[in-house]
């Protein structure tokens, strides 16, 4: 099949990105204000193209470097969909189109959105990559723009430092990935993933082929993908980078590389198991250990932070851990149906996580910081104190987002965890049952900091601890006297918050909808679970 037919969504995004780079040449405020509109339209167009392009079976281009499957369509759709919310979050509100409260583009508004589109394109490429070079290109296309986005998002030293750290460590992980890929190619002599599977399945040399070299290749690639997920022990960068970047960027980088990494990881293990998920027991154990370590370290570090963005950074590590719980279940269970359940749960959780993440970061973006600074909105517990009384809607959405991240019933996050743990418990495998127990303990620990965010927002003190907000809420003198910076009323951000809050609730309460999403996730991943196709 002609390659252009397969990558219409990617091409749409790329074309828009190119257009935006061209628009970046103009310094007129009007072009800058136009940039997010172009980006949003491109996202919507790509989403439609991706959904229309849905077909059963696998479609490959002539060289076999891209294979569009149901899974790739699903991953593309959710990443473009959530990507559209990121466009809304970064929408410039200043008159010259150069910034909003929490992000400052200076003159590079168009470029920012171009980079965002490129990162999403990278995710789409990862989703349909069928050869090692395409996979590498996809991952890097999803990553490199985010390094720049971190750096350019605000004029703070912190952001520069975060960008540099992110870049260097990302380069290190890319080196690991390439090293692994070269070993894989060396051992199997193939670049295409389906061919590698064929080689590994050939009875003459069997899975034993290459032995420890194959294992080395898998491990190196796995480490690199785990870096994208910010999984332990490659999570070190997350706190600094998330805190340093402007809030809309933090929201984006806690989703885009994660989904790309997780997708690549599933593909890698599918290939390494020769399409039948027959993996080395030690590798299975490693996945289990990393899953437990990742969620536990993420949650434990989250308890001690003062900066809410940093808390959310560790929270995102913990959520990578939950995704890895799904992965550990996937590689441990024997029955194809349970494998299907685990895959569907991972796919469902990706979407749920993306949506609740937007809700939480969106609220942070709208609330002012106590200490005003350019491109800085609420970041600490102090900034949040009492905000719920002043802005009940934001307070409620934040509570909703946090409840969903904990996994409290009647939210999307509850079903995410439920679906993740269901196959683990049903398998009856001791290791998996323990994994489920540990996940639940972790959910309890995570409540420690999520509820702290909610309590801060609904506390009666305004942070200085002197005045009860409720008493002064109606007192107009309060605002004048304190010079408290007003909340930003950005319609796009509010729209993003409203959409995600509605999504969280709808998926948590309207069971038919939850079921429909889950079934979509299940049908997207079903072919992977069945083993050899």
């Amino acid at each position, binding site marked *: 099949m002609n390659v252009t037919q397969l990558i219409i969504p990617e091409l749409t995004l790329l074309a828009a990105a190119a257009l935006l780079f061209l628009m970046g040449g103009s310094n007129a405020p009007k072009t800058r204000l136009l940039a997010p509109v172009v980006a949003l339209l491109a996202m919507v167009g790509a989403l439609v193209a991706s959904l229309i392009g849905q077909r059963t079976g696998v479609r490959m281009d002539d060289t076999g470097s891209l294979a569009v499957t149901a899974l790739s369509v699903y991953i593309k759709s959710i990443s473009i969909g959530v990507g559209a919310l990121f466009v809304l979050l970064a929408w410039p509100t200043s008159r010259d189109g150069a910034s909003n409260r929490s992000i400052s583009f200076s003159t590079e508004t168009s470029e920012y959105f171009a980079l965002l589109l490129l990162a999403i394109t990278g995710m789409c490429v990862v989703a349909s990559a069928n050869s090692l070079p395409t996979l590498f290109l996809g991952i890097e296309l999803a990553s490199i723009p985010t390094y720049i986005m971190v750096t350019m998002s605000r004029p703070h030293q912190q952001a520069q430092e975060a960008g540099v750290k992110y870049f260097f460590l990302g380069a290190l992980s890319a080196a690991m990935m390439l090293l692994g890929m070269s070993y894989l190619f060396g051992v199997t002599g193939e670049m295409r993933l389906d061919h590698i599977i064929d080689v590994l399945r050939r009875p003459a040399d069997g899975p034993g082929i290459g032995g420890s070299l194959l294992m080395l290749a898998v491990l*190196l690639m796995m480490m690199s993908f785990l870096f994208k997920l910010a999984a332990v022990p490659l999570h*070190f960068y997350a706190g600094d980078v998330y805190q340093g970047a402007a809030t809309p960027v933090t929201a984006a980088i806690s989703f885009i590389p994660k989904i790309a990494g997780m997708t690549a990881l599933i593909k890698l293990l599918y290939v390494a198991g020769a399409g039948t998920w027959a993996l080395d027991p030690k590798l299975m154990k*490693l996945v289990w250990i990393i899953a437990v370590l990742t969620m536990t370290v993420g949650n*434990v570090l989250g308890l001690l932070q003062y900066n809410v963005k940093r808390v959310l950074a560790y929270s995102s590590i913990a959520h990578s851990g939950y995704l890895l719980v799904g992965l550990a279940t996937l590689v441990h269970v024997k029955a194809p149906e349970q494998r299907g359940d685990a895959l569907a749960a991972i796919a469902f959780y990706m979407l749920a996580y993306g949506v609740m993440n937007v809700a939480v970061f969106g609220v942070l973006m709208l609330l002012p910081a106590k200490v005003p600074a350019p491109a800085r909105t609420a970041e600490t517990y102090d900034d949040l104190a009492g905000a719920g009384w002043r802005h009940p809607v934001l307070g409620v959405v934040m509570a909703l987002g946090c409840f969903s991240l904990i996994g409290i019933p009647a939210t999307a996050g509850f079903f995410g965890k439920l679906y993740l743990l269901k196959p683990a418990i049903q398998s009856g495998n001791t290791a998996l049952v323990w994994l489920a127990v540990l996940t639940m303990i972790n959910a309890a*620990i995570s409540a*420690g900091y999520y509820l702290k965010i909610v309590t801060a927002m609904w506390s009666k003190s305004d942070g200085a601890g002197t005045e009860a907000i409720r008493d002064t809420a109606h007192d107009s003198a309060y605002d004048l006297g304190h010079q408290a910076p007003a909340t930003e009323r950005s319609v796009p951000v509010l729209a993003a918050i409203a959409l995600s809050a509605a999504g969280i609730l709808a998926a948590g309460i309207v069971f038919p909808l939850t079921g429909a999403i889950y079934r979509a996730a299940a049908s997207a991943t079903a072919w992977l679970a069945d083993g050899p196709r």
Partner: protein
Amino acid sequence: MNFVIEHSYLIPLLPLLGALAAGLLGAKVLKHNSHWPIWIGVGASALMAIVLLVGMLTEHHEPGRMMYFMSHWFDWIVAGDEKTGIFNAAAGAFIDPLTAVMLAVVCGIGFLITVFSKGYMHGESGYFRFFAYLGLFISAMTILVMGDNLIMLYLGWEGVGLCSYLLIGYYYEKPAAREAAKKAFIVNRIGDFGFALGILLTFYCFGTVSFFGTGPGSNTGFLEKALHGIANPGTEVYVFWIPFCLMLGAFGKSAQFPLSVWLPDAMEGPTPVSALIHAATMVTAGVYMIVRLGTLFVGNSNAMITIAVIGAFTAIWAATIALRQSDLKKVFAYSTVSQLGFMFVGVAVLAPVAAVFHLITHAFFKALLFLSSGVVMHATGGELDMCKMSGLKRRLPKTRILMLIGCLALSGFPLLSGFWSKDEIVHAAGGKSLVLGAVMLFTSLLTAYYTFRLYFRVFEGPEKIPGGDHHHGLSQGDSESHGPAAQAHHNPEPLSMMLPLAILAIGAVFAGVINLPFAAGVREHALGHFLQQSPSFAMAARVATAKYGTLTDTDKLGLGQEPTSHVVEVAPLVIGGGAALIGIALAFVLHLQNRAKADELAGRFGSVTRVLDAKYWVDEIYQALIVEPARALGRLFWWFDRVIVGGASFMIGVIPQIGGAALKFSTQRGYLQGYAVSMLACLVLILLWMFM
């Protein structure tokens, strides 16, 4: 009628919509017009209920054929699979003569009381709240009597319980009202726990919670399975306990000893609530439940004896307390408890028709009595203490006549409704056991006495009107008196309040004709003939025949079967009427002719009056036997929670924090080189582990 059956969901839905409208729009938009949505919703439901009843009454029927209609609304809760057994609680109605009768009582009397409430509640703060709760109550009560499975019954059961709680606590600024609301709710928890256990056991034993499954004769409902003795293998032993569990729920809701303590306190609610919920409808739900599930109960003679003993004891016990109460509403509250005891006795002696008959007549005259005392309360500025008033007949002439009718009906004065229904129960009880019959007869005498004690004290004798000088309402009904009292001083008997009372009074006089023991214009035992077509009655009759052999005439009557002889037994009627007359005469002597004599008598039997005044110290016994141990247990749990659970969760909280601090200061120091080295070191460790 077909329209009503096809759209039976409208009966609970319309009052619910009315309640929503009143609740959501009442505060800001409707304000003092908040009664309209409820009037319309409940009125429409009442109309439908009456159309349904008339339609079913005129339906041609052959003896021995069951009459029922099933209407499936939607699938509600479906769980499980073929292997584990399917739990299916559908939302749907099972409409048979019993449902039709209950619906007519609930919606009809409910509508009259909502009409009365407009005048009564006028000017109250939270006017819309009152009507919204009332609509919600009617909706829940109709679900209770229409549901075709235990879960629907339970839904309605809890729904009416909630409304009862909300309405008792309507004057929530008043501590007594708050306490009473909590008491009602908590005491009902005990009963409902039993009820819930009963539902679980039923499902465990029969694998379904549906009364009749896909219809009587299909053998898919648990009543039929019970009839044919088909329980899940290995669960037969538990079938015995189901009636006892369910009974506990019925005793809680219908305020039978010892779960009766909440009902007298529930009089803290506004008077129309006392009339509707705590006299006419909700408290009879327990009787309805046992009648509906009669098939489970009738075959279990232990359960039937328990019900008879509890019912009879409650009847006489509550009647003796009522002798010494001086608060009008308290007298009627204890009277309600006592009359409910009558109904339970009726159910237990295989006379469920008599129980339902008494339920209907009681609904009329007790609602009338409560509403009339509401009028008295208005006129006296919230005063209800009968010692502080006397001779109100000149000020409230119409109310006096209505109250007199109610009192005559309650005391079983010959030819009024209460006479016929009470007599049937006493007669049936006497047929089973003379002792039981004697107890019930004596209770009838007491009933007549305390009823007329109240009447003579309040309406006859020298005139004494409390609150006439406007310094009303220090104690009882404080908040209830403000608005209405001021208005009531102009005309204490407005038409909107008198009209519903008049209709109720007509019912209180003539409701007896629906089940006369002889033909008089209508067929004899018309209600019995109607109800016998209900599958619940027919199946219970089959169980009873199988268990107790040939039924006596009274039994057959009670279960709604054709009596073999048509001779009217006059003797029990004469004895019953005589007891009522003696009671009234006693009250006349002691409380109208010579009131000093009554006080003197009370003084002479000081110890007895002390016991009665203290209401047998039931509240105190509760305090000592249940509340205090519960509190002690609570303290134990609190300690356990603080020290053990709290300690554990403290550790759960602290250990991660210590770990976090360790990680934070060792690994999160912000150095790029450090991060890179750590990552690589970990990679090396993993590789070492994998390849060693």
